[in-house]
């Protein structure tokens, strides 16, 4: 449903992404893992058209992404970034309703329809924010705000979610529940998600597809079990890691093996 074909992204002379191809299908949760500056975010940004690849192309439902209007892309692809700085006070409900923009028609005079409100109420329930709808975004804690960002993305009803380090500001419980929510969204609605994360253990547990990037190059792609090996991870992250099976889930568990200084 969403495909990158031989994509390269250059910033001036710097090559951020070099000849990367990947494909996500309905139900997929793909994690992109790599060190800082490996080109993860650039790749994610190219997938929804914010950045134009210097070489290669992005295909949405087998058609070039450029051939869709922004509105059409907004209905199909939603982006979750780390919480943004808001210059004006806005309520959680107003913020989440922003996700309905791409669906706005002429029948409601530019205002939200009943259906928009129903969807907003549903996603607020899903993200446990139903009692926060009248609160202002900048009064929320970091974790609550991050959930509101996810709620807005879910409100778009897009079939593809792109998430850029969505768990960075969350405590352990909310990290897991956010990814569970994304996982459930993929399973129930046959949606796809691409998630850029530094948390390899979360990726191992929730993703069914992992892509390793290093210096803009795709090093490996495949099932977590096959890709998240000591060898590959040590190469990509440039730090020695130990990989064993998680005692409960059996998913690969990654532990960095620091050389301890005494």
């Amino acid at each position, binding site marked *: 449903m969403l495909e990158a074909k031989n994509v390269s992204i250059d910033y001036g002379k710097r090559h951020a992404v070099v000849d990367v191809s990947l494909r996500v299908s309905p139900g997929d949760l793909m994690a992109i893992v790599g060190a800082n500056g490996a080109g993860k975010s650039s790749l994610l940004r190219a997938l*929804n058209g914010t950045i134009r690849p210097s070489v290669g192309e992005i295909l949405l439902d087998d058609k070039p992404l450029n051939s869709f209007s922004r509105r059409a892309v*907004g209905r199909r692809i939603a982006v979750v970034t780390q919480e943004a700085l808001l*210059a004006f*006070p806005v309520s959680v*409900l*107003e913020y989440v309703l922003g996700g309905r923009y791409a669906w706005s028609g002429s029948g409601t*005079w*530019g*205002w939200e329809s009943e259906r928009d409100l129903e969807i907003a109420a549903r996603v607020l329930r899903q993200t446990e924010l139903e009692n926060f*709808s009248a609160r202002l975004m900048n009064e929320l804690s970091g974790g609550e705000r991050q959930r509101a960002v996810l709620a807005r993305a879910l409100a778009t009803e897009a079939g593809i979610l792109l998430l850029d380090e969505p768990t960075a500001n969350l405590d352990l419980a909310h990290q897991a529940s956010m990814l569970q929510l994304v996982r459930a969204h993929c399973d129930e609605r046959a949606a796809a998600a691409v998630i850029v994360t530094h948390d390899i253990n979360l990726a191992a547990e929730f993703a069914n597809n992992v892509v390793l990037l290093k210096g803009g190059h795709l090093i490996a792609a495949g099932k977590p079990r096959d890709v998240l090996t000591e060898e590959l991870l040590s190469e990509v992250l440039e730090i020695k890691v130990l990989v064993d099976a998680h005692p409960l889930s059996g998913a690969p568990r990654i532990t960095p093996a620091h050389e301890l200084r005494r």
Partner: protein
Amino acid sequence: MAWSKSLARFTRKLLSKDNVNERTTTIDRNAASLERNARATLRKTLIVCGALAVVLILISIVAATMGSERLPVADLLRALFTGGTNTGALTATQRAILFDIRLPRILLAATVGASLAASGASYQALLRNALAEPYLLGISNGAAVGTMVALVFLGANEWTRPLMAFGGALAATFVVYRLARGRAGATPEKLILAGVIVTTFQSSAIVFITTLMDATRIRSFTFWLLGDLSQATPRSIWIAVVSTVVGVVALTLKARPLNLMMLGERDAFDLGVEVERVRLQVFLAASLLVGVSVALGGSVGYVGLVVPHLVRMSTSGDNRLTIPAAALAGASFVIVADTLARTVIAPRELPVGAITALIGAPLFIYLLKRR
């Protein structure tokens, strides 16, 4: 039909004395009221704008009675409603004062106020900064340069002045936007600096053009630069009214994407907004509003700062409500300021910009300090 639903709920409550049922009803109602406060709606917008329109009409009538020649309200209303055919006890002079001087002036004040307030609200949304204001950003000055070029080099014509002012405002808007813009919107420091740079550059252009004028015209120009609504003529006023309506409606139609852009252009892009196109449309509409209002009324400062701020504070930050409400409130604000300007030291007059700056500058300092 919200009322029919609540009526049905009410009857159900009357019919059944069930306690549980009653409790759920209250919970429902709490949830509904919470949601109503959480966002602006079309209904709320219509109520707020309706109320502001009534205030605007009342203020206009009061302003029309005031001045060196006091006009009795009853006669004034009769004259207005009959379109001047039945002027009652008004003398011919009073009639001329009403229709040829005061009404055009009040209409001009209203259009200038509406234009500056609506464009101020839009600049604030686009630059993501509540301190953005056409006068402080140097956009009014850009329009002033355009007007003066038209006057000195192209001959005074009712159309060339507003057109050149529009061009000047548009050029200034683009320069300020380029200078002030950053990834997270315009920081106040960058914004104010960009405004200072653009303003001083244009001030020197204004000085340069002024030296080309003869001494008798210079005084009336300095007055106009500070905002002078006394030059309103029944003919020029129609240009102002039409462009104001067009500009405010255009901005209101772009209010929903503007809401998203106000929170971040990249997020807005992700959500399906054609950011570049909306930005250009808003720049065009806002520059038209500033250009025409400056060409006819001079640079009236701080209206675009004070009015949107008060509207946001008392109603909602949703531009679908803020922009039309600010236009109506701005119209009332400038009519009051101009009535003060022409009555407090009568028979002499103050520039209206002096009055608005008196109110606006302290508010600006307050906003800057509050951050």
